[in-house]
């Protein structure tokens, strides 16, 4: 049987905000671009982002990109790369204005400008008064952005491969990435998509944890593909637990709820954040607030019958603000809790939300790996952007409102670099058949019949291991046990089988391949966490409670080969301004 082969200048895997922003830039520049997505584009998880996107527009309070940069560096617990952070914060107003021109229905101020709200970790004057930097379309900002970007791509006639599952990258012996082997979910037919450049924009891997705010499709496909292509993953130990997931369920309650004035209380009715962050209180960084809630519960001040959560109180905001600024939150509370936040506080608990780590890139979106003489050598033809990537602008802890910004700025930046690359690399390199065959074998592996464990129980076990052994508070002993369990699981997954072997829209096969990807991401996370013997940002070690800049102001790199750990320096030098040196972090 002949394998279908298609050729494009630029290939994008993933149709969330980063992929679509890049695609738009490329289509508008008349490059031949293809977007491959396992779900219809508007079903990508960007659609679920609520609160907004940060940019120092100064529409509500005084602001500057430099203050935004300071907050981001501090929020990252000094692990963020300051050149990339400067680049992002400087570019922020421009990308937000572009969005507005693309048609995003931002909420508006009385003067007709874009509405901005306060979010956690934001300040004026380098750590002084609270800032209002988050541009919002009610509490549906991600939806508004994703749909507008998709619409603009329709206008630009971008070519979409909807509901195609990417199996693996194609890479030749010289290390050039030549595209991807995918399969059409509808027909089950494999396809080779050749491209001069490949951008991975597949989002995060939140499904490695049992309770998470993520879509079922957030299975770290791109991260795992990169690992299998020999690219290490950076800083995977840094997993953000969002302070306000709906307790026990995981649905996200935006930080914008606290930005609009909501606050957290314990079983005494006490606003406990005043003790943990006297100045910023409920708008401290997410890592700080999540730890505070976890400590309150652990020390017996949790709410509810099982004393296992905190309450988010919005009642004092009044019906008007809630209906106008947080309509989606109200709708979700009514649907999932049968509770109206106008009348009752919402039960919340820290919930796995975001992968700070990912595929290492520079600020042009090029994927970079350590080589003999440099820690960051670009992989020719390969790019990554968004949650799947690690630029790193979030370091050890991401600020709310910086993820939508990240996808826009670096989706765009990657596209611009791709255009330059295409100028200089006008022809496709010869296809590497060995690499294609390997990917096809990965697909065919699931045709195996006979006895074997099923996929779903294994997936459930994996997520439970991660929650029990690599959660908010970590110790060497518990994690070591987790690694042992995961290694055993990895072998069992090798022998798992699916019962459904039909070609047509076989979701069992998709889920099986997603499980393999989750496995690789989970292993990367726990090995990196075990390696880092300090507490920084979202990574809290009970056995190493302090930050240790002398030994650990560096990025982790996990490789699939032997689960090996390596490290590389933080880029502490910004592009034009002075570096922000590490300081004690108080809010």
């Amino acid at each position: 049987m002949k394998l279908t082969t298609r050729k494009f200048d630029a290939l994008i895997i993933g149709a969330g905000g980063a992929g679509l922003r890049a695609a738009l830039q490329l289509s508008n520049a008349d490059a031949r671009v293809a977007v491959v997505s396992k779900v219809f584009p508007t079903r990508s998880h960007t659609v679920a982002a609520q609160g907004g996107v940060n940019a120092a527009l100064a529409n509500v309070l005084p602001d500057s990109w430099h203050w935004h940069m300071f907050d981001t560096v501090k929020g990252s617990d000094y692990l963020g790369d300051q050149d990339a952070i400067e680049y992002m914060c400087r570019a922020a107003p421009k990308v937000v204005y572009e969005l507005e021109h693309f048609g995003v229905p931002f909420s508006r101020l009385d003067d007709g400008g874009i509405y901005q709200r306060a979010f956690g970790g934001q300040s004026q004057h380098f750590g002084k008064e609270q800032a209002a930097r988050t541009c919002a379309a009610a509490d549906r900002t991600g939806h508004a952005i994703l749909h507008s970007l998709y619409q603009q791509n329709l206008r630009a006639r971008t070519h979409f491969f909807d509901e195609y599952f990417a199996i693996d990258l194609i890479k030749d012996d010289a290390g050039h990435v030549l595209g991807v082997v995918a399969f059409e979910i509808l027909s089950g037919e494999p396809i080779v998509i050749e491209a001069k450049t490949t951008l991975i924009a597949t989002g995060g891997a939140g499904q490695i944890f049992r309770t998470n705010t993520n879509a079922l499709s957030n299975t770290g496909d791109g991260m795992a593909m990169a690992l299998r292509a020999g690219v290490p993953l950076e800083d995977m130990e840094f997993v953000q637990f969002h302070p306000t997931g709906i307790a026990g369920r995981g649905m996200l309650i935006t930080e914008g709820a606290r930005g609009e004035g909501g606050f957290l209380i314990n079983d005494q009715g006490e606003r406990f954040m005043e003790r943990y962050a006297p100045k910023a209180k409920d708008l401290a960084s997410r890592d700080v607030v999540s730890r505070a809630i976890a400590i309150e519960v652990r020390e017996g001040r949790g709410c509810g019958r099982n004393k296992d959560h905190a309450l988010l109180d919005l009642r004092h905001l009044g019906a008007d603000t809630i209906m106008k600024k947080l309509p989606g939150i109200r709708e979700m509370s009514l649907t999932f809790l049968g509770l109206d936040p106008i009348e009752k506080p919402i039960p919340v608990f820290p919930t796995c939300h975001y992968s700070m780590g990912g595929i290492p890139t520079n600020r042009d979106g090029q994927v970079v790996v350590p080589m003999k003489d440099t820690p960051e050598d670009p992989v020719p033809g390969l790019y990554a952007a968004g949650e799947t990537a690690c630029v790193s602008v979030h370091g050890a802890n991401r600020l709310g409102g910086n993820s939508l910004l990240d996808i826009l700025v670096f989706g765009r930046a990657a596209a611009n670099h791709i255009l330059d690359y295409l100028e200089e690399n006008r022809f496709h390199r010869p296809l590497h058949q060995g690499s294609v065959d390997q990917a096809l074998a990965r697909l065919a592996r699931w045709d195996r019949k006979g006895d074997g464990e099923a996929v779903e129980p294994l997936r459930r076990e994996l997520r439970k291991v991660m929650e029990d052994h690599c959660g908010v508070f970590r110790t060497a002993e518990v994690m070591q046990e987790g690694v042992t369990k995961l290694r055993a699981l990895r072998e069992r997954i090798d022998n798992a089988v699916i019962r459904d072997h039909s070609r047509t829209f076989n979701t069992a096969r998709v889920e099986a391949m997603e499980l393999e990807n989750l496995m690789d991401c989970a292993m990367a996370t726990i090995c990196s966490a075990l390696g880092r013997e300090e507490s920084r940002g979202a990574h809290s070690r009970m056995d190493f409670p302090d930050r240790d800049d002398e030994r650990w102001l560096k990025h982790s790199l996990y490789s699939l080969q032997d689960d090996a750990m390596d490290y590389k320096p933080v880029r502490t030098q910004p592009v034009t301004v002075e570096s922000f040196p590490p300081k004690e972090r108080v809010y």
Partner: protein
Amino acid sequence: MDFSIYRFNPETDSAPYMQDFTLADDLIEPGMMLLDALLLLKEQDDSLSFRRSCQHGVCGSDGMNINGVNGLACITPMKDLKAPIVLRPFPGMPVIRDLIVDMDNFYHQYREAEPWLVNDSPEPEVERRQSPEDRDRLDGLYECILCGCCSASCPSYWWNPERFLGPAALLQAARFIQDSRDQATEERLRRLDDAYSLYRCHGIMNCTQVCPKGLNPSKAIGDIRRTMIKRSV
């Protein structure tokens, strides 16, 4: 809890059939949604096929016909459903497999509505201004998640899916006609001004009844008509 679920695999089945499933009562937890139940049923039989992703009603993947009414499985509480729960794919759309329908025509009609902002004025270096009142006119229009519940419940769309745009696409048309920043209003109205695109809507209002986001395509269509009439006199 008993289920009766529409099954069809084009590779092995000459015709669709309904299959009974049972979910043990001790697996049903308080607050459980239909999607949670479906995921458990898929563990019994991994060939049971349906789309799903976000699990909280924003991605629009898991639209289906639930006890006769279109809705999203992930935000349909189990406690509201009468047993046996009868699940079918969207009516009026070609079935690919089980609960998965071919939405190509639905997306085609969406594109026909040219759902993108058109503004050819010189681009300012900042945002284009829009008053809060003008922005308010987009509420109830821009929140559509393209799940398809509305169009798949509309008899006019069932009969004329190629020529009638259907409620979802018309809601998009209204969203851009209403946007004070958009300059293509005349062109948009002209494109809709034929016997089918818009005017096949007979005000049956199934769309509004089933919309899982509480939107009102029926009203949006009425507003477009009124705008059209106003322009023509």
